[in-house]
């Protein structure tokens, strides 16, 4: 049923109010033709007996009260097929690479449906990213959602690209691997960096890109990650691919959400963000995972820039409550020239313990990782103390821990952008570093492990 109206009563920010609408469905897709003939899309935010409040995806500039509004009787959908691989779309799902529209196998509602918790399969396959701070300490597993908390000027894009390039599952079967990239409000250069990297490595042929750049309409960003995740769900659960989804930058996404909320005059929560930000973000992040009886998986790597590197800002804060850990980039490490500047202490992978150990990585992995964490934490503390009191004030043990933490940063954390370390190599570096410490302080390691690996 297509119904057309010419009764736009109000236009305010990204919203328009259409009067005299008899039956607009909640979340229904809307097409608006401006008086100049341009076609824009939006969705119903509030449906009333007499009116409908519509949020325009591509902004309201150029709209007037003579615009013609058509209700399409369905939600926002994405046409999908395996031909999507290698294609570049705009943030609202239109071809951006000049290529033809794909022949859709089916159209999927971009909001998706919640996965039944009983249908999930627990993520427990170790992904080797070749990056020691991730593999060794904050291990990524297939089907996990692990965000990168970054700050402006930090090399999160390089890190994400390195992960996309190097990620592999040890002894994994022949299942196909693909990448879905959703860009929200990032610069042309940053988007180009990813595309160039995908082209250089040939990954572009098994990638689907949804690009909303900084100068594209801000409201379009609200649907971009949903498009990306819908494509990922199709590839993972219908085509059996292992899909790595990179979303950048979640902060821009949340700001668009705030813009719509403000235009609706909703009661704001912290820092002006809407009270439902947690729920909204969870409907993105929770789409990652594995399903029982399906060979594919969605591993989600959202990137967000923390305003003023503040982890307690609502965006990183709420993200951390939903995702299964976080990789935190550290400005101090970056300024000392250490790449990748991952601070392992506040970073965390909640699924690590299910993905490592005998048969997956190595039997000593968990204990070695815990010992590295504990020793590095103590070393940092000792270093802070030494700054105030001088080295001489440290106990013998603390001096060793202090040296350990320096060596840890330079040998374990630091690595090349194209350096792909195996998990064996990563663990060996760790054991090498333990030699700097007194053996009676290695409380997290088992004596038999010390005997076996401390050579």
């Amino acid at each position, binding site marked *: 049923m297509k119904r057309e109206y010419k009764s736009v009563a109000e236009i305010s920010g990204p919203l328009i109010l259409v009067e005299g609408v008899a039956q607009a*469905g909640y979340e229904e897709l809307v097409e608006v033709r401006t008086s100049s003939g341009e076609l824009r899309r939006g969705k119903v935010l509030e449906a009333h*007996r007499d009116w409908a409040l519509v949020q325009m995806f591509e902004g309201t500039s150029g709209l007037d009260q003579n615009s013609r509004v058509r209700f399409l009787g369905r939600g926002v959908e994405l046409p999908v097929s395996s031909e999507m691989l290698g294609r570049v779309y705009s943030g609202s799902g239109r071809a951006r690479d000049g290529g033809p529209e794909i022949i859709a196998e089916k159209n999927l509602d971009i909001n998706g449906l919640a996965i039944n918790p009983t249908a999930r399969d627990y993520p427990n396959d170790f992904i080797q990213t070749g990056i020691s701070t991730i593999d060794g300490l904050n291990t990524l597993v297939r089907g996990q959602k692990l965000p990168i908390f970054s700050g402006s000027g930090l090399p999160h894009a390089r890190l994400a690209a390195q992960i996309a390039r190097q990620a592999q599952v040890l002894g994994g079967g022949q299942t196909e691997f693909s990448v879905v990239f959703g860009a929200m409000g990032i610069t042309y250069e940053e988007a180009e960096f990813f595309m160039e990297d995908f082209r250089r490595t040939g990954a572009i042929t098994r990638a689907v890109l949804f690009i909303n750049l900084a100068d594209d309409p801000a409201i379009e960003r609200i649907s971009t990650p949903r498009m990306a995740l819908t494509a990922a769900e199709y590839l993972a659960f219908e085509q059996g691919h292992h899909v790595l989804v990179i979303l950048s930058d979640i902060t821009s996404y949340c700001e668009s959400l705030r813009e719509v909320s403000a235009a609706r005059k909703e009661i704001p929560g912290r820092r002006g963000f809407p009270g439902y930000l947690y729920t909204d973000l969870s409907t993105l992040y929770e789409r990652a995972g594995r399903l029982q009886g399906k060979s594919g998986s969605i591993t989600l790597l959202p990137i967000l820039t923390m305003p003023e590197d503040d982890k307690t800002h609502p965006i990183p804060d709420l993200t951390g409550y939903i995702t299964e850990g976080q990789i935190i980039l550290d400005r101090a490490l970056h300024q000392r020239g250490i790449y990748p500047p991952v601070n392992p202490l506040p970073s965390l992978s909640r699924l690590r313990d299910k993905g490592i150990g005998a048969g997956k990585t190595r039997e000593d992995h968990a204990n070695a990782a815990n010992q590295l964490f504990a020793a590095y934490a103590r070393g940092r503390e000792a270093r802070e103390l030494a700054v105030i009191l001088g080295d001489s004030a440290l106990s013998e043990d603390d001096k060793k821990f202090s040296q350990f933490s320096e060596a840890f940063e330079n040998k374990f954390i630091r690595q090349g952008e194209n350096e792909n370390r195996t998990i064996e190599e990563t663990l060996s570096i760790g054991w090498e570093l333990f030699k700097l410490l007194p053996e009676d302080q290695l409380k997290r390691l088992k004596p038999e492990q010390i005997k076996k690996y401390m050579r």
Partner: protein
Amino acid sequence: MTGKIVKIAGPLVIADELPEVKMYDVVRVGARKLIGEVIEIKSDSVAVQVYEETSGLTPGEPVVSTGEPLSVLLAPGLVTTIFDGIQRPLERIRAEHGAFIAKGVDLSALDLQKKWLFVPTAPVGAALQAGDALGYVQETPAVKHLILLPPLSAGGELKSIKAGEFNITEPIAVLTNKAGQDEPVAMLQKWPIRKRRPYARKLSPDKPLITGQRIIDTLFPIAKGGTACIPGPFGSGKTVVQHQLAKWADADMIVYVGCGERGNEMTDVLQEFPHLKDPKTGEALIKRTVLIANTSNMPVAAREASVYTGVTIAEYFRDMGYNVAMMADSTSRWAEALREMSGRLEEMPGEEGYPAYLGSRLAEFYERSGRVIALGSGAREGSLSVIGAVSPPGGDLSEPVTQNTLRVVKVFWGLDSALAYARHFPAINWLKSYSLYIANLEDYYAAEIDEEWAQLRVQAVSLLQQESELQEMVRLVGMDALSGREQLVLEAARSIREDYLHQVAFDEVDTYTSFRKQYLMLKAVLAFYQAGLKLLEQNKDVTRSFKHPLRAKIARLKYTPENELQTMTGLAAEIVKTLAAL
């Protein structure tokens, strides 16, 4: 009664032409009959919170009132089952609709066809009152499901009762009520989730809920029938603590509510619990567990209902005379659901946008815990302990949900991100946390563990306190400036932290420590301190004892299996003797 939708905004639907509807009645919304609940009544319209996705609803669709409040079904079939926030059976939804939760699913919470073997215990002719047992169903090897006369029954004389296999709606007995009429009784009961189930009277808690987690049992115990909260920033290990409690707490029944949290966490419970053995009964842990899962991406209104669904089921088992423990992870998400609905209703907000009634709702919820004498002539004693996780934004405990929770709960386990960064788990801060049950439990400790337990505990707490003061000093003047006695305090406190409080949930042995083992361990850890004091008395260099090989033995005590505890009995005395003679 049929009304019409006027407006849809997210989970809130406004309907009119529903004149006789009551507050909190369940209504079916739209052509797909989505489940909703009336939360506001105005002169010409009612507001409905809808427990399912509302996308696609249009104004003008019908709204039908069922005339009943939101209730749960209570009967055999609850145990080992996983429900969503409004008690829909997720496993059967999956069997019928696939991996994704479809809209408008209409399935009964419990299997109405399944037959259960009912064993009568009440004799014909007995005068029965509400809460009296008719008999039982052995639902799982771990749970004997008592069939009680419902709380609102007026009672009467038992005219007949049948043994055998019945489904939950078939009559199993006939009661002659006071007016002389016959009333058939089936196993199935219904109870509205927002109303607490009645009991005869409440008692003060006097026994600990033994969790096998050393920092909890030793320093900050919760009593059976008590309340506790675990606030902490993300990544500090709230969920691991909750899971550990669900696994090892010595309760008869566990109700675990995953409220607005991660889907994988529920999957973890579902996949792990069938393989874990209850240390008490030897049965799989899932055999005593009921799960409620309303993950963060499932509809927000059902999240609000999920904690009530959970607590009502927990009360039902409490009434059978069981010790029930309920975990709610996380109450903050529940409060946020409340805030979201309140915002959509355009209510005047209180602090941080939360509705002004946040505090009273939280208090009402936690007050449903307690140790009680249940209804009925048997004077059955049951308890319901409630443990709520709180997720304060940015880890800031001054926010309204934490503050309102702290006003009603008696135990506070404050999680600390600094501890979590150093991978000291459980990351419960020993300086900020507290338990108000210690006085209630003193008699139990003296009788069941040891007379000296209370004293050991006080000594451990005092050493940790002194450590934090001394650390301030070390930061200013360095380690060298400390006296031998002070160095001993630091070393002993470090041992308490690393060798005793630090506990690895993923280690097969360390994951659970019995009270007996806790006592032996703590005694050994503190023996090092006693020995040091003796050295100081003799004016000897106390630091010589710091590197003694016996200390490595103390550090490994946590890995001593429960069936080898006899190897630990003489250790404390040996430590004092050996170290003090250095």
